[in-house]
């Protein structure tokens, strides 16, 4: 079994989205490119027979996190300014580090011996029923913990984002930062 054409197209789409998200000048463009990368990843999951994970990825990342990032950009006035210059010494350093990390990872993949044997795995049974049962029986404790954590995160985000009313000099405006959260 070899890499298929859909996989290649999706991989290129995802990577292009990721690269664009990290290199474009306008922050809103970055956010949109980021959502392309997220959507490409969701499609990759679907390509790998992980239906539920792919749709959850689409729902959470494209539907919520991308929107959240866009809201944050607009709330921090990033939407209308060309924020930064393209190249700096720190930028080159970061790129070199990232390249080194990639080289190590690729080398590890290549030498680990999992890259070359032909895999003959039938698509695993990922029916909704199995996932539901797994979540409700085997992984019920992590699920509860996640629920608790999400509640805590939501309350925390609201508390962080709500405007402090104490200082009288604080500017009163119509925008509500907690809207997206």
């Amino acid at each position, binding site marked *: 079994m070899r890499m298929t054409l859909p996989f290649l197209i999706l991989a290129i789409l995802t990577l292009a989205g990721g690269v664009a998200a990290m290199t474009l000048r306008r922050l*809103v*463009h970055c956010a*949109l490119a980021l*959502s392309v990368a997220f*959507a490409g990843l*969701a499609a990759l999951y679907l390509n790998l027979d992980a*239906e*539920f994970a792919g*749709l*959850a990825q*689409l*729902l959470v990342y*494209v*539907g*919520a996190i*991308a*929107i959240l990032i*866009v*809201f944050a950009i*607009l709330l921090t006035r990033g*939407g209308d300014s060309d924020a930064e210059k393209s190249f700096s010494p720190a930028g080159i350093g970061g790129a070199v580090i990232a390249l080194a990390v990639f080289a190590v990872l690729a080398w590890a993949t290549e030498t680990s011996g999992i890259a070359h044997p032909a895999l003959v795995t039938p698509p695993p049974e990922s*029916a*909704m*029923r199995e996932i539901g049962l797994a979540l409700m029986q085997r992984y019920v404790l992590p699920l509860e913990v996640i629920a608790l954590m999400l509640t805590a995160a939501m309350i925390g985000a609201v508390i962080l984002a709500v405007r402090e009313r104490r200082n009288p000099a604080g500017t009163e405006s119509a925008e509500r930062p907690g*809207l*997206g959260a």
Partner: protein
Amino acid sequence: MSVAVAPAFAADQIFVALKYWLVLHTPGPFQTLVSILLTIIPIIVVFPALFAVTTVLERKGLGRIQNRYGPNRVGPWGVFQPLADAVKSLTKEDIVPRSADHVVHYLAPLVLVATAFLAFAVLPIGRNMTAVNLDAGVLFFFAIGAATELAVFMAGWSSRNKYSLLGAMRAIAQMISYEIPLILSSVAVIMISGTLSTTRIVDEQAHYTGTVAHWNVFTPWGLAGFILFMIAATAETNRSPFDLPEGESEIIAGYFIEYSGFKFALFFLAEYLEMFAVSGLGITLFLGGWSSPFSFLAWIPSWIWFFGKLLALIVGFIWVRGTLPRLRMDQLMNFAWKFMLPMTLVVIVSAGVWRFLPAGVAGSAALGGVIRWLVCALVVAGPYIALARVLERGRKIEKRTYRYAE
């Protein structure tokens, strides 16, 4: 009996049979392609055609509700009005603002229409007539629906217009707020059906006790859930009375203010397609999809049932649009979080009660059914009345008197 059933079944499956016949008569290498095209093209043709019909229905219906005639010039009774509209929007100049972000401005309507069309993939529009029978169909629908928010933002932001950005922000805030009751009210159905597949949800409802079908809307939680679902769907598709994102009197046309010509038509199309899709999901979840309500009506082809129900819901949308005035932003948010969310949670509880109450008591199935129905109705109605009391406290509605006018 079989003689009577056979032609009915043939009419029911006519499109399925036609597709198989066409695929069988194509040369081997193209069979997959033809099969895919034969699944996609009907969706791309039928629903925009329905959009054309709906626009003229809506304009005539609104006209009659306001004691006017409505369009009646193009063709007999104005039925060719959509044709004239199409010609107009196709021949109009496409204006892009100079300061707009051209790429994003161009992509936004395409993304919106594409996602709107994708949602139809999982809707069973007839027996054996689901484009893609996904195991997680309902989840797919909501995941695709989430992507429309981004398209709306793209349109609003790229136009470089304060009204369009305001409209987009309003639209996103509203869509996120109402997505929660929309999903939670479908969760009740998913709990009872035990599946996320739209096809199987419809199959579950296509059984009959006596002559009455097992539609979810016939149960107390289903009825309440259906009403909540449709309210949330109205808000989700930005239709009146929740049309704040495009409130003409406030922000002119909202996020698509800077679009003209064909792109404007695309926004219009996408809006109606979303309305059809979410109505289709409502039909699938609560109104038994393509099944008939009574077993003696089962001879009517399933796709006629689906489109009949769809038209009925569209008429409902138009009726509501002609009746209710637009909400204010704070009223909209209060309604979502103080009324819709608690009520959908109550509906889920009621569905749970329904699941675990026995359908028959002491050998009498009818008595048990009635008791179960009443108990579940009480579970929904009690909190509703209490919530209504709380929300209406200190609010007296009286006729306004004018001191100087009249």
